[in-house]
């Protein structure tokens, strides 16, 4: 994005909580929602004499995330202490990684330019660290309440290269990142719940210049759209400042969501001196190549790869695939239905239509949805064969959701089997023509457009069981 005069240069730092059962350095539960300070122990309370011991699953999930983002995982990485004082940081330092992080050098594709070129955002590094507790300022007057349940929960920090050039791209990057991490099943990645947090670094420069301008850091954005708005606001501020001959000062700014402005952070600390040094209570993290290869082999199919495959395997349009792959679970469900029924198009329609509607109504997830892919495939086949009509099919589906019974059984039980017997259909046609003499007369006289209405009457009379094709044919033949 440029105002003509300037280019926006943005790098994003994303912190993601890993969905382990226990904390990074102790066996306390990492779940949220518990009463304050119940998920604590000497280690995460930083009692004198306590020591950290690293959680294997945190390492595994962090490695999986790094590999899924295309990074190189370093066989040796070092933990380091980041020292600062804050009441919800019990040790007075955070165990993080500094000089030798877990992984470096990945990238994600976030879309295409107008001429079809891929837009890729580089990832500088992924490193492991622990979360701090929570400080609650408004609960008691004149006091801040500290809850250390979250202290010690494992995080990864994903640092992007300053490759992002617009607020929209920043949003696209975040959405892509979130989806990849969901597919990898390493985190709940919910900004609302706090398992995903974003900080931005932004600078401006004249287009064509390679040297980076002075960057500011923007924090306190609590949604992807807030990130976009904050970047646009700060870009405008920096551009105006440079335009007027001023210089951008390196500082930290906080996004004020209510007033929709960035304002300077009022801490008096200036630049922070974290006095990083290697964590002496932990030895280096050594990952052997074999173990890394196993994690790589277990990587699930990533969104991009899945989209490409669905397009080629099932001849679906990119837009349709885009919708299906928003959720990995839906994509899997669709694929199972498509393979079982052999009809990708119908599967797409039913999944995006009836299935999604039913899930929305019940509030449940597709993993616990009563109608399993094989069951839905059977229904699709019944409709395709003409055993039941499409309309009846919808009714059957509803009953399947309610009862969990298979399609064929419901159709039989409720007499929804399509009737193709000409004699029966002819009988219904006769009845309808007799019951609706005015429309009948007009239709038989030549008003073809009334055919649909009359077919509708027949379908209603037959409770959806008549084969609509035969009804049309019989009516048409009466009209001559």
């Amino acid at each position, binding site marked *: 994005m440029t105002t003509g005069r300037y280019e926006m240069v943005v790098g994003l730092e994303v912190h993601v909580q890993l969905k382990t059962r226990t904390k990074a350095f102790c066996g*306390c539960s990492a779940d949220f929602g518990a009463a304050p300070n119940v998920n604590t122990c000497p280690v995460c309370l930083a009692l004198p004499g306590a020591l950290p011991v690293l959680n294997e699953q945190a390492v595994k999930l962090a490695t999986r995330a790094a590999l899924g983002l295309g990074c190189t995982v370093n066989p040796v990485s070092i933990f380091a202490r980041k020292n600062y004082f804050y009441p*919800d940081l019990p040790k007075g330092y955070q165990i993080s990684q500094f000089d030798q992080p877990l992984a470096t050098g990945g990238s994600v594709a976030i879309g295409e330019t107008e001429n079809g070129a891929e837009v890729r955002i580089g990832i500088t590094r992924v490193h492991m660290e622990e979360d701090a507790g929570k400080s609650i*300022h408004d609960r008691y007057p*004149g006091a801040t309440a500290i809850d250390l349940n979250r202290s010690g929960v494992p995080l990864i920090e994903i640092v992007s290269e300053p490759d992002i050039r617009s607020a929209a791209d920043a949003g696209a990057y975040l959405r892509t990142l979130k989806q990849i991490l969901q597919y990898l099943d390493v985190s709940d990645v919910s900004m609302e719940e706090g398992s995903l947090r974003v900080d931005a670094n932004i600078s401006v420069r004249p287009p064509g210049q390679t040297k980076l301008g002075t960057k500011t850091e923007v924090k306190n954005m609590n949604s992807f759209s807030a990130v976009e708005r904050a970047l646009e606001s700060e870009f405008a501020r920096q551009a105006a400042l440079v335009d007027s001959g001023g210089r951008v000062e390196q500082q930290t700014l906080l996004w004020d969501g209510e007033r929709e402005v960035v304002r300077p952070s009022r*801490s008096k600390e200036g630049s922070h001196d974290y006095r990083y040094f290697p964590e002496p209570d932990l030895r280096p993290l*050594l990952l052997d190549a074999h173990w890394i290869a196993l994690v790589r082999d277990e990587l699930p199919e990533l969104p991009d790869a899945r989209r490409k495959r669905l397009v080629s395997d099932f001849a679906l349009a990119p837009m349709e695939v885009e919708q299906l792959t928003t959720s990995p679970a839906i994509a899997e469900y669709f694929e199972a239905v498509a393979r079982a029924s052999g009809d990708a198009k119908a599967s797409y329609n039913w999944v995006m239509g009836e299935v999604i509607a039913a899930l929305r109504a019940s509030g449940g997830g597709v993993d616990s949805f009563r109608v399993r892919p094989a069951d839905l495939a059977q229904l699709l086949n019944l409709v395709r064969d003409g055993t039941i009509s499409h309309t009846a099919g919808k009714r059957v589906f509803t009953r399947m959701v309610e009862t969990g019974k298979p399609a064929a059984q419901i159709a039989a039980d409720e007499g929804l089997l399509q009737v193709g017997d000409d004699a029966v259909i002819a009988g219904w046609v006769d009845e309808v023509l007799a019951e609706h003499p005015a429309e009948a007369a007009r239709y038989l006289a030549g008003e073809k457009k009334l055919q649909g209405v009359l077919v509708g009457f027949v379908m209603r009379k037959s409770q959806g069981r008549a084969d609509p094709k035969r009804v049309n044919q019989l009516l048409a033949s009466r009209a001559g």
Partner: protein
Amino acid sequence: MAVTREDVLHIAQLARLGVTSERADELTRELSAILAHMEVLSQVDTAGAEVTSTVGAEGTPLRPDAGTVPGLSAPLETVAPAMRDGFFIVPRLATHEDAAGIENRA
């Protein structure tokens, strides 16, 4: 390398140690004297000496993702200076302190 009084006040701030004005002068002298003894290290040739902060060449041990927590044998209230409804209570952070907190972490 001599330590200045400004240095001492700055690092005292970083370490949250309240240092009085008089004590600052004394400390400046003491620390400068101690650091003078360290100068000898700058003349040591350490090319090729790897930096090790821990003895031993094994990696850090990993523990399973399960809860076997060495518990507390007394409730937190027995050691905490101020607790209320299960929270640790501290004086309300001033706006700039809160901002510092936001600056320091995600």
